[in-house]
């Protein structure tokens, strides 16, 4: 049984912020959870999935975030407590639903977890999703620690039911992936079946109904503001003439910095956890007794703008700043030393940061982080190799719109198989546009999970419009990058995972794509021939590259290939493998003659792909 279920109430456990959210939802009696995996939210879904296999909790990895939010909205309309979790850009996908769900409202409590990613650790942008609360008119809570994530998640269900509105729980990577002590409460049993009670003139958003629903939403917002004014999540600490307004993980840095700078008797901290609607009276009273105020929040000046508006409305003229030169940036997550420096600077405290050791320089630049890499034995690398060789043989230059998944790691040399990427599903549609505008040879890449998430509509459009590109669906049988979650096309599923299989090939055919190839990318000659054929055709062509993620196979079946390969003395140092394939198991050992190609037996997966095009590579004899 999962520790999140079995840990007894009253105990203190070390949980990730994401785990604290899961525990709190179970304590609140959540009955249905939906998600589409995405860092930094993925562990929320994964833990719930594990628990759903051990209990009567309803859970699904939905096909995308819009689907997830709507499935949850349906269940919430029947009185169940529901939670849906997604990364920040996932809420863009679900935004159409979110805006009008605010009009429709909920019966059972509904918590929407938005996991934002300042510094873009694993995202395509660092948008600030707090503006969604403002745009939709929904209440929002922002935890700063795992303990607070637990308290706020629990409170959010009650708040949601009182206001009959979904509540946005807005986290950031440093809350999701921080581990800290969490004090546990008792679990609540899930209710039996809910019941849908018809009320079409409140729940069917045609214009006449929606006009009234908007009025109700504004009324509920006023109630939400009143709740924010007295919420225990908004509180004051310290004393003195200076003020700091802060929220989320920034609060932690502020508390440390104020103590380290010896400012506890000079700075009063207004920590906001219930940040939308803004508790304007609380903020106004705080401003009225401060000489100058600093707003500390990552990303956009969401609080800063509202706090300044409160000051204006009250005729207060004290300096209020947050973002700006010499102060905080709208870029990236904050660090303790940055927060300490800005606080010292803004309040005129003499403080000199100890200069950290200068990073070592290589070729005149600090050494960058080592990038993540496609694993040895990854089917994506094998498929990329065949495309590179096919284009070379045909004397063509390809343009490669790509998509979001492990295969995006093909961006870097030597693969260099990514030229254009916006968001989930953009590969197919941008390929359509690029090919239409240029007539260049366009090869688009999309993964299996991403194809179901956002690729189907694009493919139907491309077929219907008669666009001209080759779409390669990299089907590794799972959502690999976020931790091997299932999707409708999976063939390898964890034991006990109930699902109807929706074969990608049949979907592609049903969407009208006539020119279709299916290959196993580890069969080099067949794949190369099929790729050349597909490149030579015109119109929409689809090639499905089918081979499971080896990590997924290993985790599910516990089997690993025992075969290993080595570079023999036949190697002529042509560097072809380094320039076209770039397997992490292959490396050049420097020697007097320049270097010797070798294969690291610990890293070689035994996929046997390279032996099909290099005569110098041969199996290591067993024994």
């Amino acid at each position, binding site marked *: 049984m999962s520790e999140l279920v079995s840990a007894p109430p009253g105990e203190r456990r070390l949980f990730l912020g994401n785990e604290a959210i899961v525990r709190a939802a179970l304590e609140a009696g959540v009955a249905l959870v939906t998600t589409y995996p995405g860092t*930094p939210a993925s562990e929320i879904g994964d833990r719930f999935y594990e628990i759903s296999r051990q209990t009567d909790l309803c859970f699904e990895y939905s096909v995308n975030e819009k689907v997830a939010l709507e499935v949850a909205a349906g269940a919430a309309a029947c009185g169940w407590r529901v939670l849906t979790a997604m990364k920040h850009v996932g809420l863009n996908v679900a935004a159409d639903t979110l805006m009008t769900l605010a009009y429709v409202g909920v019966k059972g409590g509904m918590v929407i977890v938005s996991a934002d990613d300042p510094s873009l650790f694993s995202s395509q942008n660092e948008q600030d999703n707090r503006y969604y609360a403002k745009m939709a008119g929904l209440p929002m809570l922002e935890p700063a620690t795992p303990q607070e994530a637990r308290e706020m998640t629990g409170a959010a269900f009650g708040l949601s039911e009182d206001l009959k509105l979904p509540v946005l729980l807005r986290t950031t990577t440093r809350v999701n992936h921080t581990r800290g002590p969490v004090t546990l409460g008792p679990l609540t049993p899930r209710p039996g079946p809910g019941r849908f009670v018809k009320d079409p003139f409140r729940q069917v958003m045609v214009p006449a109904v929606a006009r009234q629903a908007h009025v109700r939403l504004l009324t509920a917002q006023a109630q939400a503001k009143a709740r924010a004014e007295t919420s225990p999540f908004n509180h004051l600490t310290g004393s003195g003439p200076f003020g700091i307004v802060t929220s989320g993980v920034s*609060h932690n840095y502020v508390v*440390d910095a104020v103590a380290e700078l010896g400012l506890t008797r000079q700075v009063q901290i207004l920590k906001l956890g219930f940040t939308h609607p803004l508790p304007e009276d609380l903020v106004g009273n705080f401003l009225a007794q401060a000489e100058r105020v600093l707003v500390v929040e990552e990303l956009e000046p969401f609080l800063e703008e509202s706090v300044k508006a409160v000051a204006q409305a009250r005729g207060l003229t004290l300096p209020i700043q947050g973002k700006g030169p010499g102060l905080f940036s709208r870029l990236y997550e904050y660090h303790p030393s940055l927060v300490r420096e800005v606080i010292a600077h803004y309040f005129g405290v003499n403080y000199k940061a100890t200069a*950290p050791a200068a990073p070592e320089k290589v070729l005149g630049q600090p050494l960058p982080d080592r990038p993540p890499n496609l694993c040895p034995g990854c089917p994506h690398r094998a498929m990329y190799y065949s495309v590179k060789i096919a284009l070379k043989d045909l004397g063509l230059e390809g343009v490669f719109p790509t998509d979001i998944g492990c295969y995006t790691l093909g961006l870097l040399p030597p693969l260099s198989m990514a030229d254009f990427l916006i968001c989930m599903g953009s590969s197919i549609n941008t390929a359509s546009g690029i090919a239409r505008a240029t007539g260049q040879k366009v090869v688009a890449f999309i993964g299996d999970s991403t194809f179901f998430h956002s690729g189907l509509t694009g493919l139907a459009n491309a077929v219907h419009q008669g666009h001209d590109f080759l779409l390669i669906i990299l089907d590794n049988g799972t959502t690999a*990058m976020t931790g091997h979650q299932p999707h409708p096309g999976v063939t390898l599923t964890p034991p006990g995972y109930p699902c109807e299989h929706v074969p990608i090939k049949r979907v592609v055919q049903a969407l009208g794509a006539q020119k279709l190839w299916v290959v196993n990318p580890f069969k080099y000659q067949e794949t190369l021939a099929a790729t050349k054929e597909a490149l030579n055709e015109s119109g929409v062509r689809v090639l499905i590259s089918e081979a499971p993620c080896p990590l997924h196979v290993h985790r599910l079946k516990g089997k690993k290939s025992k075969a290993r390969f080595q570079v023999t003395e036949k190697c002529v140092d042509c560097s072809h493998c380094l320039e076209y394939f770039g397997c992490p198991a292959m490396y050049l050992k420097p020697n007097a003659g320049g270097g010797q190609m070798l294969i690291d037996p610990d890293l070689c997966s035994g996929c046997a792909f390279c032996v099909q095009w290099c005569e110098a590579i041969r199996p290591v004899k067993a024994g």
Partner: protein
Amino acid sequence: MKQQIIVSGLGGQGALTLTRLLAEAAAAAGLEVITSETHGMAQRGGTVISMIKVGPFKGPLIPAGEADNGLFLHRDNLAVHRGYLKPDAAVFVNSSTPGDYARVDARGLAKQLGLPPVAANLILLGYAVGKGGLFCNAQLMEKVITEKIPARYQELNLRAFRVGLAAAAAA
């Protein structure tokens, strides 16, 4: 007690396991602790770092130049993450080549003893604990390994940890 520790490695080397064990050991010793971890796309061969802050800290990140200890699962990461360390920090590195740090050839030892390469993480931990460089002792860490590592990996991890302890005693 205040101790700020970084665990630096490449995705797949088991930095998260070390982070979890150190945090649980701190909690078991009755100390306050928070961690910050790298999950998600920054994995599989990419540079990763976790931070463990033992003591009354609120913020989960360690400022540059303030870490008391560094556990490096890969020597090349020193060039990237050394800036987090205090000038007099205790640094433990999985490396077969000598340098200005305490080192143990954890991968070499794992290989020699028939352990999988990933067990190098617990060997490095055992070495650091054996050298007395961390807030906790070997007995406490063994208890935490027994309680927190899933049963089927427990023996392997305990064995690797003890290999590291022995290497520290011998060095």
